[in-house]
């Protein structure tokens, strides 16, 4: 079977949707983990609270994987029958991947900063954890919106 440029572009989009937010989440979760470890040295009982904050910037990576998976499903790579995509179709898929790929990467890092600051809240006033979570969740909104845009675009494309 001949490989078309469209197929390459579509797969490239899927790959970007997975790896860019993945990098962002890895970096973000790491950043919050560093801040959390500092607090836990002082008071090990705060482990579970800081763990929640650490998990928050991890969702972008999941959203990215999810988008990548939807692409794989749509272009038929999962079933083993890769659709013969035209170059334009491939570009369409590629474009649909961009929102979550880019917003995922950057929002994970921005969210990690907010969450790491939230770890500071937990250090001094553990009862105010919810406020720290809310600050971080404010950032997540944009990742959710980007995910939604990417997925709606992918579901809307007619590829077969």
């Amino acid at each position: 079977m001949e490989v078309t440029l469209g197929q390459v572009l579509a797969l490239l989009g899927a790959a970007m949707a997975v790896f860019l937010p993945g990098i962002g989440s890895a970096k973000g979760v790491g950043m919050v983990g560093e801040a959390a470890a500092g607090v836990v040295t002082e008071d090990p009982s705060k482990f579970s609270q800081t763990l929640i904050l650490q998990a928050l910037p991890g969702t972008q990576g999941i959203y990215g994987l999810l988008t990548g998976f939807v692409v794989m499903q749509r272009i038929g790579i999962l079933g083993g029958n890769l659709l013969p995509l035209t170059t334009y179709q491939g570009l369409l898929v590629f474009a649909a991947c961009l929102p979550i790929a880019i917003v995922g990467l950057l929002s994970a890092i921005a969210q990690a900063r907010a969450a790491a600051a939230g770890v500071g809240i937990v250090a001094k006033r553990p009862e105010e954890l919810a406020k720290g979570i809310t600050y971080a969740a404010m950032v997540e909104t944009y990742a959710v919106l980007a995910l939604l845009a990417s997925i709606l675009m992918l579901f809307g494309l007619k590829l077969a």
Partner: protein
Amino acid sequence: MAIVKMKKMYLFGLNKERDKILGVLQKLGAAEITDLREEDIDIDVTERQLPEQLGSELSELELKLSRLKFAIDFLKPYGKELNPLIHGRPKVSVKKLQDLLNRESEIFDLIDSLSALDQKLSRLKTEESRIKSQVELIKPWEQMDIPVEELGATGRVEVRAVAVPKKDFKSLRDKVVEKELPVEIIPVGEGREKSLLLTVYHISAKSDIQELFKEFAVDTEEFTGFRGTPAKIIAQLQERLKAIETERQKIKTEISRLANRLLDMEALYDYWLLEKQKKENFMKMAGTEKVFLMKAWVPEPSVGAVKEAITSVTSAAHMVFTEPSEEDDIPVVLSNPRLVQPFEVVTELYSLPNPRGIDPNVFMAPFYFVFFGMMVSDAVYGLVLSLLSGLALWKLKLKGMGKKLVELLFLGGISTFIWGMIFGSWLGDLIKVKPLWLNPLDNPLAVLFLSFAFGLIQIYTGIILSAYKNIRNGKIVDALLDQGLWLVLLTGLVMMAFPNLTRIAKYVTIAGAGGLVLTQGRSQKNILKKFISGLLSLYNVTGYLSDVLSYSRLLALGLATGVIATVINTMARMLAVNILGYIAMLLVLIGGHLFNVAVNALGAYVHSSRLQYIEFFGKFYEGGGKPFQPLRIETKYVDLEV
């Protein structure tokens, strides 16, 4: 269903009955005593004395508590206590407590002996580490078989034990041979970095030798304070170490023997803790030599109980209950139906309501319930969540906020189950069940519109609550012009979305918008400014728009759960090739889906909270309430039945 009304209580009583009165109040746990000393009271209590003896009583209590605390912490590792999370806290009866109080001096003697044991243990520890470092030092010399007291000068000959850096040993020996010094060098062992030597030399060569020693940085070992050969010394030291260990074991058995008194001490600690909490409240009162005046907050439904409790112990107390005044900082207690109570934790984590505001929980609970489930939206996940949290509620003795959170999760699980059935998601696509409505993967737009509809309903609720607040405060005009006109405008905009309504929608929108332009600037003086602020107020439409769009996360997170579940299923199916593969498949399925439940439950909790905090509370809610903290029986270790 709301914020409980508070009454302000002033109580006059006799000083000699103060303790008794506070005792019953503590038992009842329905009055928060507040500080009177900083308040201007128009009742004639001119002397606001703080009896000196009270201060010393309190510090005496502190001392008692700290001694008990020491003993409890000290004994804890030796005692076997049941986990209070599973078995609940131990109960201590009045009789037992009375008995303990009678034997109190004996218990404090016990604590003294415990602290003596503690000191002994730490002395042993210091000695042990000293001996260990000595052994370390002498160990390399073990081969030297002359008693250390024989080192030194003996008439014409000096015997010295020295250590020379290993690399210099050879050059030292060469130098000695070269200079033909009358020295005998006998290697006796090897340290980590040094060679250990026994040197025997004639006094006449002493200065030469010492120069050589300086040149090669040779240390002379003196063994001060020891006798016998190094091997013997080490044996003695080891013996002492053993003796220390036996002694320590002896002390530890003695401590473990005392560990069964742990409960006694905890009970006493809690008793004195309650006493201290009670006494601390004395500090907040005003009074004269014979009489005291106290101010407290009492929830309206408890007023009768408080009166009754106080009159049951004394007839010489006078109580006045008044309504709170404008500037009073009223503490907040919420009272909600049982089903709504778990949702209180969401509000509590944000901020308690302003005592003069609205308790949002009843209005928030249904939305939270629906949103949580919609974001996780898998029937099996819902069952798992409810089963796990139900198990925790049943088996663990949870209290306070932790209990509410688990209950919230339980209800969230039920909602998740319902949404899972609606969307036909049972472990993603693993179990194929026909959806009650539709699968969001087939028609995401329909679910998106449903999300927006939920958002609109919640935003309308928020605006209506805000209007209600205005009406309650007598600002009916504000309610009509601010909230009413916005409702008209928003309704018009929503109607535009329906093709057969567009014609009416236009008029409704124009009416709403026109009304807003004409009235929103009403606080301005200048007519031009009135118009401009009115026009600018229309800009708030964007705020409402972004609020509604924010509810798209209901769809997005629901999709995320479903798609991740599908990913897990797909990965698992790929593994199913042989028997090992089937086992791996099972592991991937269980691990993967558990992970998905955990991540999405966290996400659903976070995002449904956020929708309440930002989109809903932002419309009407005033926080900043201070929790009601009555004087009550609040113990640390045991449940006292006082």
